[in-house]
C-alpha cells in the first residue's frame, strides 16, 4: 500500500545523533531537572487535532480512536500492562502517556521514530496492528464531514488532507503539557523533597532520568523481565511477529523477548535496551515499564533497590541501593510530585458527539471532487 510508508532504521540515525549530543555531559554532571519550556500553540489547529484524536473514523474499521489506547481518564495511556491493539489483534507493549510527548525528541519505547510527531502520528494511524488506516480513505472520510471541512479551512489547511491530519494531531499533542505538578509549582511535601535528594544522590536515578523531562532520551538495559502474555496470547504475539518481521529481526519466529533498541541497530549490544522514559505524569498511567510488568511506583523503586532485573547486558549504572523503607517512601513521594493536573476537562477532551453517518454531498454530479 503506497501510503503506508513505514518509518524504520533511517530515522533513528537522527534520534541517535540527538542523544549523542545529550550524552556529552560527563559523569556526575547531568542536565538539571526543572520546569518544561512553554510551547506556542495554534488554537484552531489544536482544536482540529483534538477532534481528530477522539474520532474513531481515524481507524480503518472506524472502531477505535487514539483515545482508545491513550485514554485521558487513564493518564492518557491505558491502565493495563499491554496496550489494546487494532480489533482482531492485541499489542506487545504498554501504551505510554501522551502528556509531554511533544517535548520529546524520539518516540516509542525503542525510540524508533526520531524525526517529529508528524511521523509518529502517521506510524500510529497506518500501522497494521494499531489503527490500520489507509490514509487516502481517511482523507475522503473527512472531506465528507461538513464540520471537518470547516475546521480544516479555519485552521488554514484548506480542504481536509492526510498531510494536515498529521499536522493537526501533533498541534493538539502540544497542548498536553504538564500543568500544576508540585515539582513545578514549588509545593513539594517534605517527603518529596527528601526523595528528590535521594534521586539526585544515593539512588543515582539522575544519571539516566535528567533534564526537564527527567529523561536522557537514550536507551538503557535495566533488565525488566519479559511480559509472558506477549507470547502466551496469540493476539499479542501476532502483532509482535508482524513488528519484528518488519524491523528485519533475524529469526523473529523464535524470538522470546522484546529486543528493544536492537530493533533499530541490529547490534547485539543493544539487545533489551529501552528508551529512558520521562518520569512526569506517571501517577495515573500505571502499570509501568515498556511492557507494564510493574504495577506501582513503589514496585518500581523496589526494582531499582534490588539493582534492577536480570540481564547479562544490564547497564552497570544499576547496583543494589540499600534504601530503607522510609527512603523508598520518599522516593515515591518525589515521583508523585512530578504529576499535576489530569487534563481531563473539555479543554483537552473532545466531549461532543460525532455524526453517525456521512451526509451526501449535494449536487454531486456538478461539484468538484
Amino acid at each position, binding site marked *: 500500500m503506497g501510503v503506508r510508508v513505514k518509518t524504520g532504521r533511517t530515522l533513528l540515525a537522527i534520534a541517535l545523533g540527538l542523544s549523542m549530543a545529550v550524552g556529552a555531559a560527563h559523569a556526575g554532571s547531568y542536565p538539571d531537572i526543572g520546569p518544561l519550556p512553554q510551547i506556542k500553540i495554534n488554537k484552531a489547529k489544536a482544536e482540529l487535532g483534538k477532534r481528530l484524536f477522539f474520532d474513531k473514523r481515524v481507524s480503518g474499521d472506524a472502531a477505535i480512536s487514539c483515545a482508545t489506547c491513550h485514554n485521558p481518564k487513564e493518564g492518557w495511556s491505558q491502565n493495563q500492562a499491554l496496550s489494546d491493539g487494532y480489533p482482531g489483534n492485541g499489542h506487545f507493549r504498554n501504551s505510554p502517556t501522551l502528556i509531554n510527548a511533544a517535548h520529546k525528541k524520539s518516540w516509542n519505547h525503542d525510540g524508533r521514530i526520531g524525526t517529529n510527531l508528524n511521523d509518529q502520528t502517521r506510524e500510529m494511524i497506518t500501522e497494521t496492528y494499531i489503527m490500520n488506516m489507509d490514509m487516502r*480513505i481517511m482523507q475522503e472520510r473527512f472531506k465528507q464531514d461538513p464540520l471537518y471541512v470547516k475546521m480544516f479551512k479555519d485552521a488554514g489547511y484548506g480542504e481536509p488532507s492526510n498531510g494536515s491530519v498529521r499536522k493537526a494531531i501533533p498541534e493538539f499533542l502540544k497542548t498536553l503539557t504538564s500543568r500544576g505538578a508540585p515539582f513545578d509549582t514549588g509545593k513539594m511535601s517534605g517527603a518529596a523533597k527528601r526523595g528528590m535528594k535521594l534521586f539526585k544522590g544515593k539512588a543515582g536515578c539522575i544519571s539516566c532520568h535528567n533534564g526537564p523531562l527527567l529523561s536522557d532520551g537514550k536507551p538503557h538495559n535495566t533488565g525488566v523481565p519479559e511480559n509472558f502474555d506477549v507470547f502466551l496470547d496469540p493476539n499479542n504475539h501476532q502483532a509482535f511477529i508482524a513488528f519484528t518481521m518488519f524491523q528485519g529481526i533475524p529469526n523473529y519466529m523464535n524470538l522470546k523477548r522484546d529486543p528493544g533498541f536492537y530493533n533499530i541497530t541490529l547490534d547485539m549490544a543493544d539487545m533489551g535496551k529501552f528508551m529512558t522514559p520521562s518520569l512526569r505524569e506517571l501517577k495515573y498511567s500505571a502499570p509501568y515499564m515498556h511492557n507494564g510488568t510493574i504495577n506501582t511506583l513503589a514496585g518500581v523503586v523496589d526494582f531499582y533497590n534490588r539493582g534492577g532485573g536480570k540481564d547479562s547486558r544490564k547497564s552497570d549504572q544499576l547496583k543494589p541501593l540499600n534504601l530503607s523503607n522510609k527512603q523508598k517512601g520518599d522516593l515515591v513521594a518525589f515521583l508523585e510530585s512530578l504529576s499535576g493536573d489530569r487534563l481531563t476537562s473539555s479543554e483537552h477532551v473532545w466531549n461532543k458527539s460525532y455524526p453517525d453517518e456521512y451526509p451526501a454531498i449535494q449536487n454531486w454530479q456538478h461539484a468538484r471532487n
Partner: protein
Amino acid sequence: MKKIMKYRHAVLAASISTVLLVGCNANATKESTSAVVKAAPAAATTMSMGPAKLEPLGPPPIPADNLQSPGKIALGKVLFFDPRIGGDASTGCSTCHEPDQGWAWAEDFSRGYPGTVHWRNSQSIINSAYYPRLFWAGSASSLEKQARSAARGGVAGNGEADLMEARVALIPEYRKQFKEVFGTEWPLIKDVWRAIASYERTLIQLDTPIDNYLKGDKSALSEEQIRGKVIFEGKAGCIQCHNGPLATDLKFYNVGVPASPRWQDDGLAQITFRFEQYAKGMTQEGYRKAKDDWGYYYRSKNSWDKGKFRTPTLRYVVYTPPYLHNGMLDTLEEVVDFYNRGGRMEDGSTTSFPQNKSDLIKPLNLSDQEKEDLVAFIEAFSGEEILVAKPELPDYAPLFTKAELEAAQEAK
C-alpha cells in the same frame, strides 16, 4: 439500501416466433483492438475462427506453478472462509462472496470492509477459474494475484501481509497443513493466495442445461429456451460478445450502463468513489472531475476505454443478482429490457461516455415473447445452486510454553 433479491422465475407464455439469424463475428468490431487479453487455454481453442458460438465448458486451466492437490484445495477452502485473512479479522473472502448469495453479495454495491462500502458489485467466485483477467475491469491477471489484492484493498479485506502471515503461523492446524502442502517451515502469505486460488479452481459448474444440450442432449433445453437460443444467436446479437465456453469473449466493452445513483445521494459511497480514483492512480484533474467508474480506462489510460468492462459470463447468473458492474439491474428481465432499449435504462439514461458505447448495442425490437424466451435461455447457463457447509475454523494456540519462556528469561 438493502436489496437481498433472489431471481424470480418468469412466467413464460407459449407462442411461436420466427427470427432471422444475423451474421455475427465478434472479431469484426472496433472493441477488439482495445482489448489486451490473452484468453485462457480452454477458451482460446474454441474462439479462434469463424462465427462465434457457444461451447460446453471443459475443465479450467491450471497454472503449472500452482498445481492442484487435495491437501491444497482443502486448505484453500478453510482459508477462503477464514476472516482472519483480512484486516480486523472480520472480513474474509466469503464475507463478500457468500455461497448463499451466489458466492457474491446480493446488493448493488458489495458490502465493504467495516466502515466502508465497496464501489462495484461483488462478482461470483463460481467459474472465476476460467478468466485470464479478473475483476470487472480486468485488473488482476491470475487468481493468485487477485486474492492478494482482494485481501489487502482498503475497502475489501484491508489486511497487511505481515500480520496475516503471523496469524496463520499461530494456528497449529495451518502450520501443519502448510508444511505438508508447501513444505515450508512457516506458512508464507504467498502460499495463502495459492491455496485459495486452488480452491477457487474447484468452484466450477460443467453440467448446466446448456452444457448438456451442446453435448448432444437435445432435451436439456425447454421449447422456450431453444427459441431464446435462436434470439440470442440471432436477432438480439448477444452471441457477439457472450460466446465460447464461458459465454464471454473476455473483451472489454461499454454497453451503456449509466453511473450508479448511489453516488448522487449516499455519503459513504461518495467517499469510496473518490478513494478509488486515488487508488487507481488518476491524475489530480481526473480525480477532481470523475463522476463515474472509468472501468478499463484505469488500466489502459486510453480515453476510448472509459466505461468499458469485461464481458461477464452468463453462467450461474440465476444466483447472482443484482447485475452489471454497479449492480444497477435487479433481474434478468431488466437486463434484457436494458439491451432491448439499446443499452438504456427505463428512464432513457445511458453511459456517461456515449462516445465509447459499442456499435454492437442497438435497440432490438424484441416482442414480450422474445424477451421471455431470451431470459429463459439465459437461465440455461445455470445448474443447481452450489452450496457448501462452512468449514470449521482452526484455533490459535500459543507458540511457546511458559517453561520455554522461563528458560529464555533465565538465559538472558
